[in-house]
């Protein structure tokens, strides 16, 4: 075990995977000579060569399209989108091409592609460097969407994503990059895609979350136990698609209270899918209405500190208060 922050866990895993399998190619803007804007691939070009660490033009549709072509023909490309906000020119490639290759060829072809994209706000990134994009892509059957919240999960899920025969969108919350630290096993770990994880056990209510919000939920749960003796169970979704409802439902059936917390715009977000499925499948196990806490429905995260803070926390301690209210309902 070595303690690392989240971005270091990703860097080390990428490095070890590339060293172990020369089919892996890293492609993206500034991933080579510069080593990526977050220094995830610093030194990789020197170590693995320009054929495997490719500085692409600033053209996201081209980057993802080329990576699809590589994936179809014997390579294991990892495309880096510098910021998740910039991925949308490639939406067509992901939606119309990558997701359908296996389906349209009746399994003759797969698309073993990983697309990494740093996402999320709370880092003063403002309108175009703060976005949550998971809902758009989780809506596409044929694409897996992964969002680890801890360094160990980031390492384990990245290892699995690279080995996955299907396309995986790997989302990394930027605020977690250096803020979140944790022990990471030294040997490669296989963390299954499509499996949620109970990050804190409890009996009084279930809180379902992912990304940076998960850590705020864990903090609130710790305070709730200390201050009020309320035991919240916190489930880390980890994979948004395919979504592990079994783990979520098992927790909800135990606690009889459910809450979903996510940073993305609230409406049509991941929380809607999770809450709807809880209502469909565990309605009669519930003692209270499902609570959904999402970001405000505004087009983008604004810049000024007061505005950004409001986006992330519209009322003081809103997650803590929401959890307490649900427990007392």
């Amino acid at each position, binding site marked *: 075990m070595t303690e690392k922050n989240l971005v270091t866990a990703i860097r080390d895993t990428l490095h070890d995977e590339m060293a172990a399998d020369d089919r892996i*190619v890293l492609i993206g803007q500034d991933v080579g000579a510069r080593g990526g804007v977050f220094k995830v691939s610093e030194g990789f070009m020197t170590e693995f060569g320009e054929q495997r660490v490719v500085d692409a033009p600033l053209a996201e549709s081209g980057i993802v399209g080329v990576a699809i072509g590589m994936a179809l*023909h014997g390579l294991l490309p990892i495309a880096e989108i510098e910021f998740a906000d910039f991925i949308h020119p490639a939406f067509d490639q992901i939606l119309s091409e990558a997701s359908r290759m296996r389906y349209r060829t009746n399994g003759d072809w797969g698309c073993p592609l990983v697309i990494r994209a740093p996402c999320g706000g709370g880092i003063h990134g403002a309108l175009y460097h703060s976005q949550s994009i998971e809902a758009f892509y989780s809506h596409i059957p044929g694409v897996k969407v992964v969002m680890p919240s801890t360094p160990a999960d980031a390492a384990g899920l990245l290892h699995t994503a690279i080995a996955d025969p299907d396309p995986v969108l790997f989302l990394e919350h930027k605020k977690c990059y250096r803020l979140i630290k944790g022990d990471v096993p030294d040997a490669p770990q296989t963390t299954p895609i*499509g499996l949620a994880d109970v990050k804190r056990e409890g009996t009084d209510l279930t809180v379902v979350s992912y990304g940076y919000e998960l850590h705020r939920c864990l903090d609130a749960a710790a305070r709730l136990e200390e201050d009020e003796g309320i035991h919240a169970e916190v489930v880390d979704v980890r994979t948004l698609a395919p979504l592990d409802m079994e783990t979520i439902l098992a927790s909800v059936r135990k606690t009889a209270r459910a809450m979903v917390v996510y940073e993305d715009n609230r409406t049509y977000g991941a929380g809607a899918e999770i809450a709807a499925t809880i209502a469909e499948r565990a309605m009669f196990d519930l003692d209270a209405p499902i609570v959904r806490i999402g970001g405000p429905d505004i087009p983008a995260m604004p810049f000024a500190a007061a505005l950004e803070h409001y986006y992330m926390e519209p009322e003081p301690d809103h997650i803590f208060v929401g959890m307490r209210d649900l427990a007392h309902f």
Partner: protein
Amino acid sequence: MEDLTAGAAPPASGIDPGRIELYRLMARLRAFEKRAYDLFLQNLVKGTSHLGLGQEAIAAAYGVAMRADDYTFCTYRGHDHTLARGVPMAPVMAELLGREGGLMGGKGGSMHLTSVAHGMMGSYAIVGAHLPIAAGAAWSAQVRGSGQVAVCFFGDGATNIGAFHEALNLAAVWRLPVVFVCENNLYMEYTPIEAVTAVKHPAADRASAYGLESILVDGNDADAMLDVARSTIGRARDGEGPSLVEAVTYRHGGHSRADPAKYRPESEVQEWFARDPVLLYRTALEAAGAPTELFTAIEADADREVDEATEIATASPRPSVSIIDRDVWSDGGSAWRN
């Protein structure tokens, strides 16, 4: 890949066997597309379709010039390109009809023909989307040192979309073994391409923007197409990088089955029909000494092949709905949970 030179009649002496092979392929494509049109008229093909009648020389020339393991990427007007890679007619016909025996079991239809086993890496119905994918395939071939070449066909309309520029630039920067072939049939669906494009030749005039040679060829001249196909594939195979070819041609019919193409001046249509590539090539080969019996035999072979394919395709059952959720994920299913 099947031997397309094999047929009932012996090739004429003194003529490059590649030319006879090319004619035979063009005749087969022509016969297939005419039958596809007949099947539409009989209402056996549901949905839309885009025929390659009049444009056969381009797909056929590359079909003859390509190596069996090369990659083809093409558009929704892709019956010709699919058959040109040696995909048998029956499964293509059955796919048009949406039958179980179709090339893709009925999932794709006319616009999405794909056969990985034949290097036919897909007909793409999102205009321009396949250009970067073809570049990626070429990158893979380059890294693996396989000597394979990717040939990517697209229409004139695709030259105004961002993916065209992105792919050409990347391919040129990385000197990828890919040949981009613009089939300029003068109309972007219903609009003359010249009305919406800043340059006269939508692909050739832009080649210099990527440091590439401007290649403009008569897409209805099969010999000229074969020369260009051989030279551009050769360049790519020899590590000399990508090419951008503009082959000027004309579709005999409308954009799709729903389009009677009334927007085209009659004189223009007549002019191009007189330059029908199959007719032109037959005339050229006859002038070179190929006997009439050869063409009679080639055309009879093609008709027989189409008849057989039609029989197999129409006898094939409709697909079971059980395939609808098959092959979404690598485990073969669509289950939401792993």
